[in-house]
């Protein structure tokens, strides 16, 4: 099955890229934008039929590799 993860900087960690994109959007005329946070998206195909197992594996992968637990959080989605 396919499973995906979104990795973003933790809420309290400075996101320099998001800050610049936010400012640029405002300059481009999108006055109603309040905040932008940037992250990474991973889509992984996993040989697994049990959703729970897949999620557990994904969580492990995120913790061990995809996310830097010092500064990043992640959320997992089944497709």
């Amino acid at each position, binding site marked *: 099955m396919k499973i995906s993860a979104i990795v973003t900087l933790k809420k309290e960690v400075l996101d*320099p*890229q998001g800050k*610049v*994109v936010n400012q*640029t959007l405002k*300059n*481009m005329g999108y006055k109603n934008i309040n905040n932008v946070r*940037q992250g990474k998206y991973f889509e992984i195909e996993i040989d697994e039929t049990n959703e729970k197992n897949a999620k557990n594996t994904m969580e492990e992968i995120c913790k061990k590799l995809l996310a830097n637990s010092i500064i990043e959080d992640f959320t997992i989605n089944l497709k």
Partner: protein
Amino acid sequence: MKSAVIVFPGSNCDRDISVALKKFQIKNEMVWHDESDLPKSDLVVLPGGFSYGDYLRTGCIASKSKIINDVIKHAEKGGLVLGICNGFQILIETGLLPGALLRNKKLRFISKNVYLKVNNVNNKFCLNYKGKKIIKLPIAHNEGNFFAQEKILKELEDSDLIAFKYCDVNGNTNEASNPNGSSKNIAGILNVNKNILGMMPHPERHIDPVLSGDDGSFMFESLLKSF
């Protein structure tokens, strides 16, 4: 000859290029990205650096600057535009030059002197490289890996729009002499009218024999000669 160097937040080779232009008696003016009109100029330079910190995509946010509209007009009228390093990335994001600049193949920043084959000397930037076909210039970038679809690459080759190719000391353009994984060892390209040049190497850093080379000088001499 008059030039204008556009300064974006995060540009950091703006001083270097202005020093070079002055050294070769080109009258230069610095232009802040937030201006709407260019001063009267024959040459517009988009300098190297990390405009907007390279955030989102290199060159992408700078390409949305106010001044860019006037740069595009200047280019469309046949005015000269030179984009170096981040300037090249910006030119690509504005659509003035084709292709994309991806992360270096080894996923590392590369700062070193490289050999280049001057592939086209029939343009106002490279006239003085005639007879001096292998030159040495510094590169310093993280995203210089030129990529384009086959069709575009073929067009660039067929129309002789590749200005520089990475090579070794003997002029061989192969994988070993390709520092960043660029398609066809491309280091710099021209537009169809040959009034726009985008290149990853830094000619402005090699204009004095006390530095590790002065092969950049020829480019500024070429520009001067064409006016």
